[in-house]
């Protein structure tokens, strides 16, 4: 692993078009700004890992699962609507700021 030391508002660049900037260091929390082209996806590592595990579990389903599932859901009650409100949080505009897990946005 390449290790670099940076102070707040110092940046480094990955390739030609990804710029990572340290915005703030506060105790055990670091705020990072990421400027990347739209085709580059940025994920929090732990969320990405969770999704990867869920996909691996889903992929393990037997080939006949769809048929069985379709039969099971036919006439069954619909799923509960998701209650979480949709928001424009994290909508990309300029530098995207990624906070640590569970930390409130300022």
């Amino acid at each position, binding site marked *: 692993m390449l290790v670099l030391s940076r102070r707040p508002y110092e940046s480094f660049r990955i390739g030609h078009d990804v710029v990572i900037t340290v915005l703030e260091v506060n105790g055990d929390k670091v705020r990072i700004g990421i400027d990347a082209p*739209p*085709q580059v*996806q940025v*994920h*929090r590592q732990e*969320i*990405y890992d*969770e*999704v*990867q*595990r*869920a*996909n*691996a*579990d*889903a*992929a*393990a*389903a*037997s*080939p006949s*699962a*769809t048929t*069985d*599932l*379709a*039969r*099971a*859901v*036919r006439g*069954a*009650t*619909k*799923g*509960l*609507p*998701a*209650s*979480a409100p*949709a*928001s*424009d*949080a*994290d*909508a*990309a*505009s300029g530098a995207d700021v990624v906070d640590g897990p569970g930390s409130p946005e300022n």
Partner: protein
Amino acid sequence: MTMVTIDAPTSTTLPVAHFAEGLVGFPDAHDYALFGGEGGVFEMLPTDDAGPGFVVAAAAVFFPGYHPVLDDATAQRLGLDDAGDALVLTIVTVGADVSVAHANLLAPVVVNTRTGRAEQVVLSGQDFPLRTPLGAN
């Protein structure tokens, strides 16, 4: 862009879904065909043997109150100008007993039904669950 609820199409009306980046953890398979669709449940199988298949459920059928927001970069990658072109599919994990099935609302598959461009979108900051019962009980 807020996803709207559209009627779930059947597989005959859908193009092959092309995932430029593959699915999370399965980067090698890029093209998936959707089969079935009755009752909102599809089998999503790679057109080659580059990865596993998945069971997916149309969000519009199973989760009508689910309206994830795509950020501009994602909408741009998918070439989505009109939310009505987006088919939102949730990847389903089927347990040993098919009555125990969970859908992933945190990272749905979004397909541009006009072009076939598709992506598994990891939704950040919207508090959607990774595992929600599909209600197939």
